């Protein structure tokens, strides 16, 4: 516990000092991208990790967030902060439709349905005159500053992305500690038992999805304000949905800091392979990225954090001289994908 607190403090210190130590715009931008990926992973994690509903259609929420704030800004002069909030709410409402059509399905069926819903949303936006069709929308740069959420420097976006990530993690932490976290885990691990003790499964799945959609959409609005340009390909693609799930899976599904770790690792690998092989135009970076997904999914199904926890559990067990059966049980207990997560697991790191 103490070591966890120390690690957390160290990570926070690094995050706060980084922009003062690193001035190069390329690296700052990379850090912003990593923070944004961590934030969307954390938002996905609420429903995909804690409640165990593996959505691959979350780009729909991200895109709706981005489009809502941008359209409100361009056409009605809404302040982007207000637009961001509106985008989150619109996405939460959309998630009711999403949930209604997908939640009666389980496992693979659910996942495929989420892909279909997101694809339909993307097709609609690609052909929707008002939303700029496939051409996309641009945000004017005429007003800058904190109120307009448009900055000429990357560092400001760094702080914004960091704050948004902190907010999302704080919300996740609060959920984890409350009865909601308990219900979500029950829905994920023991749906039948949960139902038998009177938990309204459909309702709490929807709660998880709405929360997740809200925070995903906020991330989308930030993306729009950072890039000052959105189109269906950049904010509504299935590839984006995959990335949200991937950072969580890489780091450890259903853990508080899993998406953060997953995002750091993924961003570094993506950037390294792009810088090393990207110029060849032969997709070497894709090969590395995809190879990594397969290796993680096959060999480390519980992600980086999960792997560490399993190792710690094994060590602990060995120290206590327990028999092999219990070792396996402990390892399984620490795996967020396989079995109920440790009661304190998420909170301790």
């Amino acid at each position, binding site marked *: 516990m103490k070591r966890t607190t120390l690690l957390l403090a160290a990570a926070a210190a690094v995050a706060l000092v980084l922009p003062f130590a690193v001035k190069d715009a390329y690296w700052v931008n990379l850090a912003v991208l990593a923070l944004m990926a961590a934030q969307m992973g954390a938002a996905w994690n609420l429903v995909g990790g804690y409640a165990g509903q593996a959505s691959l259609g979350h780009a729909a929420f991200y895109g709706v967030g981005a489009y809502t704030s941008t359209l409100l800004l361009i056409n009605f002069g809404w302040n982007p902060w207000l637009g961001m909030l509106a985008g989150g709410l619109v996405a939460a409402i959309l998630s009711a439709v999403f949930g209604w059509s997908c939640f009666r*399905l389980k496992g693979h069926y659910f996942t495929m349905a989420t892909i279909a819903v997101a694809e339909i949303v993307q097709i609609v936006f690609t052909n929707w005159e008002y939303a700029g069709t496939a051409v996309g929308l641009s945000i004017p740069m005429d007003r800058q500053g904190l109120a307009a959420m448009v900055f000429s420097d990357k560092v400001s976006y760094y702080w914004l992305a960091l704050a948004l990530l902190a907010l999302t993690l704080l919300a996740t932490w609060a959920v984890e500690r409350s009865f909601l976290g308990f219900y979500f885990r029950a829905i994920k691990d023991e749906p039948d038992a949960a139902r038998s003790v009177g938990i309204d499964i459909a309702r709490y799945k929807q709660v998880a999805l709405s929360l997740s959609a809200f925070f995903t959409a906020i991330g989308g609005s930030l993306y729009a304000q950072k890039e000052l340009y959105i189109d269906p390909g950049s904010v509504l693609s299935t590839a984006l949905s995959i990335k949200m799930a991937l950072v969580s899976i890489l780091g450890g599904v259903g853990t508080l800091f899993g998406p953060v770790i997953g995002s750091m690792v993924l961003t570094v690998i993506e950037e390294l392979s792009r810088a090393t092989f990207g110029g060849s135009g032969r997709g070497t970076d*894709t090969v590395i990225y995809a*190879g990594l997904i*397969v290796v993680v999914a096959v060999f480390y199904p519980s992600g980086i954090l999960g792997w560490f926890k399993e190792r710690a559990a094994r060590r602990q067990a060995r120290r206590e001289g327990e028999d092999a059966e219990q070792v396996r049980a402990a390892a399984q207990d620490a795996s967020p994908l396989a079995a109920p997560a440790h009661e304190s697991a998420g909170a301790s790191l």
Partner: protein
Amino acid sequence: MTADLLFQTLASGVLIGLIYALVAIGLTMIFGVMDIVNFAHGEFLMLGMYSSFWLFALFALDPLITLPLTVLMLFAFGMLLYKLVVKRIIDAPPLSQIFTTFGLMLLFRGLAQFFWKPDYRTIEGSIASGSVHLAHFQLGRPQVVAGAGAIVVTLVVWWFLHRTKLGAALEATASDKEAARLMGIDSHRMFGLAWGIGAACAGAAGALLSTFFPIFPEVGANFILIAFVVVNLGGFGSVAGAFWAGILVGVIEVMGGLLIGPQYKMAIVLGLFLAVLMFRPQGLMGRTQ
């Protein structure tokens, strides 16, 4: 709208639907036997197309002549993929299964781009080029040949499943893994076989498509979502269901394109998919379990 146009559209829908059916049969078989959704299935099709293309470009062999070779190669590839990767994730949580096949999908696309460049390639001058005249209707000969080929391959698969011992063993594994194992059927062998046949079907579809469809690393993306829709409509694991559902989806797609607009045809198909998932999760022709 004239009756001619309607008929011609209908016919082309049936023909492309036969290809969809063939792709979906492989997918439904893998799912039926081992409950894993293969997101990399479109890439089998892509590899089948490239196999046809290279045999044509390097040895001037027609895709129709090399079809059996392509099918064999894809069969071996599917088995190999099972042995090397899929075997390890049989008992893994669903999320890692999804991501394994998703990763494979991206990996094969990336490798195809790496080795064969992202260019669009076409096969010109196949024996199947030209057009077929039927009364005063005109249909592309490649499409007609592909449709006929798809029917033949489907019949072969159907014959294998229902008229051979190995096929019966595969069916038995699909309906009850444990019971089949107790009867002395090696599950791993059956799973490998399902992946082999699944890949071979998609490869055959790729070979048949290669005479009239552009060949590029991401071509599988055009077919995988449709294949999911077909598999759902036909009922997971049902070969006959996938066949009829494939034709239905092909017709709905082209008719939707004609009546509402081609840019929405995918949305129509996906909407149908969702509707079926919601109101008839066992598929239009599937049995209730």
